[in-house]
């Protein structure tokens, strides 16, 4: 089947999509967007977290056909090497990145958390990121990164509203 999805603001088409393919497979293998990761492919690890019509989902649990005509934002859509999103910048600086396989999912999930709650405390961060597994860091520096990003986003938006994207 043919699928049309708006990905990171651009309309994209994929042909010959098998009905059993996930949104994750289409993003990674058909649209050239491997930033969303394939760690468990059953919704346990959160490393494929993306926005689907503004809602945080695991792309591995969304059938490709379900994304037809909808809007997807992946980690590639949050920032670029030249213009990192403050969440991405904070993950680099805080040492929240080791092997990095969980990082894209955690960046998207943190982006979502800070949009809902600009100043989360440790307990709220833990609850909000509980769906994202990391095997390298022990999470301490991820919590540091969330605080760092929260502080910077607030400083950049003195009205109090956290910025949505860059």
């Amino acid at each position, binding site marked *: 089947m043919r699928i049309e999805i708006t990905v990171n603001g651009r309309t994209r088409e994929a042909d010959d999509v098998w009905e059993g393919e996930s949104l994750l497979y289409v993003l990674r293998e058909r649209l050239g967007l491997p930033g969303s990761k394939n760690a468990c492919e059953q919704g346990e690890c959160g490393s494929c977290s993306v926005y689907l019509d503004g809602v945080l989902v695991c792309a591995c649990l969304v059938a490709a056909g379900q994304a037809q005509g909808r809007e997807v934002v992946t980690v590639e859509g949050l920032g670029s090497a030249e213009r990192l999103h403050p969440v991405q910048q904070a993950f680099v*600086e805080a040492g929240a990145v080791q*092997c990095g396989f969980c990082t894209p999912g955690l960046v998207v999930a943190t982006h979502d958390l800070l949009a809902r709650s600009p100043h989360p405390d440790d307990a709220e961060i833990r609850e909000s990121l509980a769906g994202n597994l990391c095997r390298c860091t022990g999470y301490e*520096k991820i919590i540091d990164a969330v605080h760092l990003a929260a502080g910077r986003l607030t400083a950049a938006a003195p009205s109090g509203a956290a910025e949505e994207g860059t």
Partner: protein
Amino acid sequence: MTFARTPAGPPAFPAGTATASAEATTAATAGPPPTPTETPTKTPAGVKTELPSNAVGGVGQSPARPDGILKVTGDFAYSSDLWMDDMLWGVTLRSPHPYARIRSIDIAEALAVAGVFAVLTHEDVPGENRYGLELADQPVLAEEVVRYRGEAVALVAADHPEIARQAAKKIKVDYEVLAPVTDARVAVGHAPWEPAPDLVDAGRDGQVPQLHEHGNVVRYLKLRKGDADATADVVVTGDYVVGMQDQAFLGPESGLAVPDDVGGVDLYVATQWLHVDQRQVCAALGLGPDQVRLTLSGVGGAFGGREDISMQVHGCLLALHTGKPVKMVYNRAESFVGHVHRHPATMHYEYGANRDGRLVFARARIYLDGGAYASSTEAVVGNAGTMGLGPYVIPNASMDCWGVYTNNPPCGAMRGFGAVQAAFASEAQLDKLAAALGMDPVELRRRNGMHEGAENPTGQVIDSAAPVGELLERLAAMPMPPGRDDRLDLREMPGGVSNTTHGEGVRRGVGYAVAYKNVGYSEGFDDYSTARVRLEVSAGEPLATVHTAAVEVGQGLVTVEQQICRTELGVDRVVVRTADTQVGSAGSSSASRQTYVTGGAVRYACEQVREQVFVLLQQRLGRTIADLRLEGGKVVSECEGPLASLADVLGQRVIEETHEWRHRRTHPIDPETGQGFAHVQYAFSAHRAVVDVDVELGLVKVVELACVEDVGKAMNPQAVLGQIQGGSTQGLGLAVMEEIQIRDGQILNPSFTDYLIPTILDTPPMPIEVLEYPDPHAPYGLRGVGEPSAISSGPAVVAAIRAATGLELARIPVRPEHIVGV
């Protein structure tokens, strides 16, 4: 103490950035100002640090990692992200039986599926159909016998992964199912804990199936020190079991094999040691090393699970057979059978001490289940056997350690490597002894802990810092986390927002543990690394390029390589080339060794480059100057100050040096006594765990996990903390949740739904103190940091649960049913 992270709030970070270069995935130019030099927690007086400069982004600082930006933007190319036009997908058909004879394999129906390009069996392996890290005992594709459930039997390549998977189901394998051997002690014919002769091998004696032609014993280690009949005032014994842990790296086994036009192949893969993979691929393909070229792609964690090859030979076979690039990516279920695990252990320990709390003897027997193939069992036995009595001074010691074959999934390397299993037993013994003596468990450990100059159970004198006592004293002095107050916050309760308790039935416990671990490869292994360092002028500025085959698995080795070049060559810009087999072996990113050994190689290659710069300058000036150094892009004389810019001295010249560097030699241990200089360096860490246990439901919440570790020299303080925190968390996981459950040779929980690793909710704040007692034998005085924290954290957590519940809890991981007794 600048170094400890307190759980209270976020630390301040400088606004450092780094820019990624397009030249290679790990290449980058130096970032602007990194974290200022950290003051070590403690540096003993009179020890020369030997650091030649305070280079920006150099040794001892925490510059941004060069691959960080690529990783946060999703642009970093992991092995599962690789893609080529016209590539095929490879899948593996695996045995459904733990032990069976193969009568026949019929591939005809699979081969007829539209979209399938190849179906291969053992008949298609052109070279040696055997591979293995230390002993080549595992078939590339099973030939006559399958020895574990999940063993590779056949391969399929097709133009869509699902077509390949469906076609694989059409391969008909006729098996004669055999009764598997699934207990390590049964495999060698030992009745539980009865005195056994030194070496019994029931496989050889014909009492149980002989799983390999050389029997069922991979290695038996015997250690005897002092008086075998020593007696003590107080004796405690214990039987302990540790379950099988999985590395659970997030990036699945994967790679892309690309055939060339002349019978060779390029393999892009996630691994831990490119050259040991290359050796095994070459043997299986019957090709030379110039025909099998490996390049590292992004590695999504390793922790030992990528030491053995997975898809390497299979992908190359399919690529050479089809003439097309072939990508293989395991899913999570396949990953659970696609790599080795941590050996499960069954252990019997007996410790004796005098009334004053001095250890008199320690005796132990350990059985490690290696599963169907040897993998690194031999070295794991070496570690468990030589270090399994813990970091204590023990005058009379006895250890028997067996690593055996069974029909369980193969076991091999995982972070902590043999020391982890034994530490659960030895640390529990110390607590038992303390209780029997009526002594504080910290004081008992302190009193018996190793120190510099002490002799360990293998008779090796510890010839650098071994600060067991200080680790414990500092740990005990760290503030305790606050107790629970009246304010109910479910998030702080065992069971969390599942609302299983409001505090009733919740008991707090505190536990301590200490561990030590060898760094580097041991027992006479020729452990070396190779580094090529190039210095030239690029865009008017000096530029260093470092090329090694050392694997970045996430630990930050690429950052450390840059830091060393900056410090040694006084340059800002350092490019780290992608690791490949076009340069000599670096050895494995294992055994906490890579910063030590490859770091050493990079440092000495830099020194040779630097010497040539000095020669150039002296030739230009026509005189000898003895006190030169490179700093801030200049050649500087200690007495005369800056003499020339590095760019001027170099001009159009390119200086390149390749250096192979070895650590001090180690030696095999004596086969009868286990005595010898087995390990090049030891690293020590200690943990204090505070837990809340709901004793009615058996739920555990780890409230805090504090650590003190001696790292010799914190090459990159941020990365050091990351290693300690990550290792501590994996130890916590093994203590309370992580176990591959096996019944009749079958893994029952091959998914992250059923194999649980710690989430951010399971992981507590981790205050850390880092000590820096330089090891005079090691580059920069550094000590390997990858593993110690993964060893001491789990036993501390279990000790805390014991303290909270009063239960013996001899089986690890501790599950709710063990606590509530159902």
